[in-house]
């Protein structure tokens, strides 16, 4: 199991946590006048160091307050599923790493 695989999965987990905070703010401020709802997404960026993913913050266009609450709830659900999948992946990789280490010992 490469270090890169762990780095990628852990980056995804951190992104999901970051997004959860942004969506929590959208939910809490759904009825706040003049609040500009936001969301974050991943965008591939190519630079001198190669390709990496940047977290892009963008405005959300949703009819408020009901539309925004629905958007935030749906996005929160999607984010939770993504986080769960990545957590499963991380657990599977750790399990595999442990199995390989055990086999190497015997």
């Amino acid at each position, binding site marked *: 199991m490469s270090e890169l695989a762990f780095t990628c999965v852990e980056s995804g987990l951190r992104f999901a946590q970051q997004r959860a905070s942004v969506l*929590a703010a959208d939910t809490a401020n759904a009825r706040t006048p003049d609040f500009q709802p936001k969301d974050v997404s991943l965008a591939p960026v190519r630079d001198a160091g190669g390709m990496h*993913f940047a977290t892009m913050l963008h405005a959300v266009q949703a009819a408020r307050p009901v539309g925004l609450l629905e958007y935030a709830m749906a996005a929160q659900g999607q984010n*939770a599923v993504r986080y769960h999948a990545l957590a499963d992946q991380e657990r599977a990789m750790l399990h595999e790493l442990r199995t390989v280490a055990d086999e190497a010992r015997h």
Partner: protein
Amino acid sequence: MASDAYAIAASGMAAQQTQMDLIAANLANVSTIRTASGGPYHPRTAVLQTSGAFADELQAAQGSGGDDLLITAGLTLDADDWQQPQGVEVAAIVEDAASSPNATRNETGVDPIEQMVALVAAGRSYDANVAVLQAAKQMDMEASDISRLA
């Protein structure tokens, strides 16, 4: 990070609770024609605003190295665009002196139907914040499960 979501959702729940308290008071006083100030009761509502104090507190808690928050392994976030997610707080409680068209003309300006609709809306917002809190809790439980394996 998920702790941000806890604090933000908690601020949303507190704000909606205040709103529900005011609606309860409005409904209870639907027929109050004389208050301590002498006039009839006027419905009250909470004006919400993003909680700047919370964001400042968070920034202070993170210390001067706030930028570290913006960069995660393999992910970069444009610091110019980033604003710390903010919670919500009650900015003011305002009294609506203008009578609602559905309110009884000779009594207060409280329209029970309008108040019930507002109560449902506040309850829905409160539920949404609870869902956010539960999602954050689930994420933290998964993270702690992973840390046990590591």
